[in-house]
C-alpha cells in the first residue's frame, strides 16, 4: 500500500514542477522522505487516539476547481482584508484586499520560495508524513508580512472552501511574519460540502520581539472530510501568541499547535474548544516548548463529545534545562454525553529546569445533574439548561477571544450545536 501511495503522490509532486519557483528541490526531498516513512503508524504514540485509515486507504487526487462557484459566507464583523481559497486555490475575484496591502506585504506563496525557500520551511519541525506531503505538494497559500511597529487592528479573514471534491485533497501553506512590535489578528475559517475530501493545511508564523499575533480558527468542514492542520509558531522575547481553535466539522479532524518560546517574557495562550458529534473524531495535539527562561504559557481546552463521538487531547509542555522561571499551566476538561462517546487525555509535562511552576489539570465527566436540576427548578427548560451549562463550560477558552464579533460567532455556534442535539436530549431527560 505504501508503494501505491508513494507512486501516486510522487506523480502529483512531479507534475507540480516549476509552479512554485525555488520549491522544486524542497518538494523532491519531502517526497523522498514521505516514501521512506509514509503516514504515521497506527501505533505511533502521537497518533494513539486518531485514525488515519482514510489517508492510508488510497491516494487523494489533486483538487479541481468546482463547476459551480460556491457561496461565500459573510465576513465576521469588520475585517482588514479577506482572502478566499476555493478548493485549495486562491480565488482573487472572491477576495478583498481592503487596505491591508498599504500597511503589510501580501503575496501568494508561489512568489515566496524563490528568495528564501530554506527559511520558509525550517519552522516545520519533526515532520510526519502529513507535513511531508504538504511540502511535497505545496502549491498555494498566503504570505503576510507585517513590518516592525505596524499594528493592524481589524482581523484578516482567510476563508477556505472545499466543494465537489470527493477523493481530492488540498495542501495549503500560509506564512505569517510579524516584525518587532507588530500586531496582527488572523481568523481562519474552514467550510465545505459533504464530499469526502482532505484539507491539509500548515500555518507557520514568526512573532518577533514585542509583536502580538492573535490567531482564531473556526473549523466547520463538511462531515465527510478529513481535516489535518498544523500550526508552527516561534515567539521571540516579549512576543505574544494567542490561538483559539474551534473544531466542529469533518469526519476526522486533527489540529496540532507547535509553539516555541524563544525569547524571555514571551507569552503563549493556546486554547481550543471541540464539539464532537455523531461519528466524528476530533484530535488535538499541542506542544509548547520553553527554550529560554522567564516565558509563560497557558492552555485551556474544552471538548464535548456526543453519541459515537471521540475526542482526544494530548498537550505537551517541555521546559529546557536553562528555561528557569518558566510558568506553564494547562487545563483540559471534557464532557461526555453518551456511553458510546469517548474522551481521551494525555497532558504531559517534561521538565529539565528546576526553578519552574508548571501544572496541569484534567477532568472528564458528564454534565452536572444537580446543576441541570437547579436551573430547571428555576423554570428554565432542560434543553436551555444544558445549553447554558455547556456555554459556561466552554467560556474559559472563549472569554479570551478579544474580538467581540468572533467570540459572539463562536458562542452562537455552541448554542446552535446544542440545539441540534435537543431532540435527543429531551428524550434522554424524560427517560431519566
Amino acid at each position, binding site marked *: 500500500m505504501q508503494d501505491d501511495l508513494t507512486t501516486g503522490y510522487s506523480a502529483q509532486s512531479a507534475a507540480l514542477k516549476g509552479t512554485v519557483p525555488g520549491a522544486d528541490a524542497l518538494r523532491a526531498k519531502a517526497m523522498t522522505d514521505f516514501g521512506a516513512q509514509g503516514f504515521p503508524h497506527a501505533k505511533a*504514540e502521537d497518533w*494513539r487516539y486518531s485514525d488515519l485509515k482514510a489517508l492510508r486507504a488510497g491516494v487523494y487526487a489533486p483538487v479541481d476547481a468546482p463547476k459551480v462557484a460556491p457561496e461565500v459566507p459573510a465576513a465576521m464583523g469588520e475585517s482588514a482584508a479577506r482572502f478566499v481559497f476555493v478548493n485549495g486555490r486562491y480565488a482573487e475575484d472572491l477576495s478583498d484586499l481592503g487596505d491591508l496591502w498599504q500597511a503589510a506585504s501580501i503575496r501568494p506563496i508561489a512568489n515566496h520560495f524563490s528568495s528564501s525557500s530554506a527559511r520558509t520551511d525550517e519552522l516545520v519541525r519533526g515532520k510526519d508524513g502529513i507535513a511531508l506531503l504538504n511540502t511535497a505538494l505545496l502549491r498555494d497559500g498566503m504570505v503576510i508580512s507585517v513590518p516592525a511597529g505596524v499594528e493592524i487592528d481589524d482581523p484578516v479573514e482567510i476563508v477556505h472552501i472545499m466543494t465537489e471534491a470527493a477523493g481530492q485533497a488540498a495542501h495549503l501553506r500560509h506564512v505569517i511574519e510579524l516584525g518587532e512590535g507588530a500586531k496582527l489578528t488572523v481568523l481562519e475559517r474552514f467550510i465545505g460540502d459533504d464530499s469526502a475530501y482532505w484539507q491539509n493545511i500548515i500555518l507557520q508564523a514568526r512573532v518577533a520581539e514585542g509583536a502580538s499575533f492573535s490567531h482564531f480558527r473556526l473549523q466547520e468542514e463538511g462531515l465527510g472530510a478529513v481535516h489535518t492542520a498544523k500550526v508552527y509558531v516561534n515567539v521571540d522575547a516579549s512576543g505574544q501568541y494567542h490561538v483559539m481553535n474551534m473544531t466542529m466539522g469533518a469526519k476526522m479532524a486533527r489540529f496540532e499547535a507547535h509553539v516555541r518560546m524563544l525569547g524571555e517574557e514571551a507569552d503563549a495562550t493556546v486554547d481550543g474548544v471541540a464539539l464532537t458529534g455523531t461519528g466524528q473524531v476530533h484530535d488535538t495535539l499541542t506542544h509548547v516548548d520553553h527554550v529560554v527562561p522567564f516565558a509563560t504559557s497557558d492552555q485551556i481546552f474544552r471538548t464535548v463529545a456526543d453519541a459515537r463521538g471521540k475526542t482526544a487531547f494530548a498537550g505537551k509542555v517541555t521546559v529546557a*534545562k536553562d528555561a*528557569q522561571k518558566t510558568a506553564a499551566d494547562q487545563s483540559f476538561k*471534557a464532557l*461526555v*454525553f*453518551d*456511553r*458510546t*462517546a*469517548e*474522551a*481521551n*487525555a*494525555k*497532558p*504531559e*509535562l*517534561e*521538565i*529539565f*529546569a*528546576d*526553578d*519552574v*511552576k*508548571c*501544572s*496541569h*489539570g*484534567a*477532568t*472528564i*465527566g*458528564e454534565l452536572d445533574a444537580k446543576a441541570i436540576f437547579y436551573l430547571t427548578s428555576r423554570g428554565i427548560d432542560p434543553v436551555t439548561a444544558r445549553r447554558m451549562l455547556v456555554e459556561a463550560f466552554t467560556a474559559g477558552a472563549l472569554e479570551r477571544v478579544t474580538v467581540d464579533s468572533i467570540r459572539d460567532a463562536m458562542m452562537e455556534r455552541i448554542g446552535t450545536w446544542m440545539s441540534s442535539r435537543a431532540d435527543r436530549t429531551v428524550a434522554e431527560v424524560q427517560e431519566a
Partner: protein
Amino acid sequence: MAGTAEAQKQIAEVTGDYKYGFVTDIDMDMAPKGLSEEVIRFISAKKEEPEWMLEWRLKAYAMWLKMEEPDWAKVSFPKIDYQDAYYFAAPKKKDGPKSLDEVDPELLATYEKLGIPIREQEVLAGVQGSAKVAVDAVFDSVSVATTFREELKKAGVIFMSISEAIREYPDMVKKYLASVVPVRDNYFAALNCAVFTDGTFVYVPKGVRCPMELSTYFRINAENTGQFERTLIVADEGSYVSYLEGCTAPMRDENQLHAAVVELVALDDAEIKYSTVQNWYPGDKNGKGGIYNFVTKRALCKGKNSKVSWTQVETGSAVTWKYPSCVLAGEGSVGEFYSVAVTNNYQQADTGTKMIHMAPNTRSTIISKGISAGKSQNTYRGLVKVLSGAENVRNYTQCDSLLVSSECGAHTVPYIEVKNPTAQIEHEATTSKISEDQLFYCRARGLGEEEAVAMIVNGFCKEVMQHLPMEFAVEAQKLLGISLEGSVG
C-alpha cells in the same frame, strides 16, 4: 542557597553511604552462566518441580525469545546481555533448613545487618499482644527462612515460598499463576516466567483477617546474578491481608537485573494492602552499577467490593520500570496507588500505575510524589481507563513533582481514556522547585539546610507515607532523608 561546590562535596559523601552495600561470603550453588533451555531445566530440577511447571517455563521461554525489549519508557541504559548473567544462585544447603537454627549463621548475620530481626521475631512469637510480622527472606534466588508459619497455619493462612507452594498446593498455583499477568504480557514478565527461582505465595482463606503483617525481604547478593522472584497473593472472600516488601542489594560495579512479577487476586469483599520500600543499590555517584528494576506488579480486583491498595516508596535502583496496577473487574471494587519516588545522581525512574475500570461503581485514587535530585530523571506514567460498561466510575489523581537540583528532570505522562459518560475523572499535576521561602523559614528556626530539605520533602510526601504500616513509615522517612542528603544545590 549554599554554594554548589559545597553541595557537590556533600553528594560525594553521601554516595559512599549506601548502608546495605556489603557482600555476604557464603557457599553458593550456581547455574551455568547464560540463558538456555538447559538452564531452565537446571533451575526446575534444582527446585524439584513437577513436570507441568517445567513445561510452562519452557513455553514462556519460547515466547520470550520472540519478544522485544520495550523502549517506550523515558529511561536509557546500555543493552542488556542476557547471556552474561547467572539465573540461579542459592546458598548451598545441606538438607533445607528445618528451623532457623539450621540456617547458615552468615546468612542470619546478613539479615541482622539489614535490620530484619528474624530471630528476635521468633523469640517474640510467644509474647502476647506484641505486634508481629511474619518474614519470608529471599536471598538471591531462594527463600531461606519463613517465620511464624505455624501460627499462621492455625489461622488457615498459607505463607510460604512459591517453590514449596508449587509442590504442596499445585492446584491453587495452577489456577492463579499468570491469571493476572499473562505470560506474554511483556518482555520482562515472560522472562520471569521462564526463569523465576523463588518468591512468596500467600493464600488467605474466606473471612480471615490475617493476624499479622506478612513481609518479604529480598536481597541480591551474588555477583552477576539476576533476581526473578514471583509473588502470588490470593485473598479469598471477605479476607484481609497486609503485605510488606523490602529490597536491598550490595554495591557492585556491574548492573544487575531484577525482573519480578507480582500478582494479586482479591475475591468478593477481600482487601489486600501491599507496601514496598525499594532500596536496591542505585549505583555510584557517576551512575556506575546499580540494579535494573523492571518489575510487573498487577492486582485483579476480581470480586465485588474488593480492594487493593499499593503503597510504594522507591529510593533505590539505577533504572526503575514499574507500574503497580489494578484491574477493577468486580463491581464496586477499589484500587489505590500511593507512591513516593526519589531519584538522585544518575538514577532513572519511570513509574506509575494503571487503573482499568471494567465494572460499575469502581473507584480509584492515585497519589504520586516524585522528587528529583542530582542528574536524575523521574517520570510518572499512568493510565486511567474507563470501559463503556463501567457506570459511575470515580477516579482522583494527583501527581506532584519536586525538583531539588538544576540538572535533573521531572516528567509527567498521564493517559486518561474514558468511554462512559457517568465517569468522573479528575487529574491534577504540579511541578515546582523546592520552595526557597520554606527552606529559609525552617533555617530561621534553627534547622540545618539538609534537615530543612528532609523536613519539607517528608511533608511533601505525607499523603503517601501515612498509608504505610507504622514500622515501615519510620524506616521510609529515614530513607528519604538519606537518599537526598547533599542533593541541595
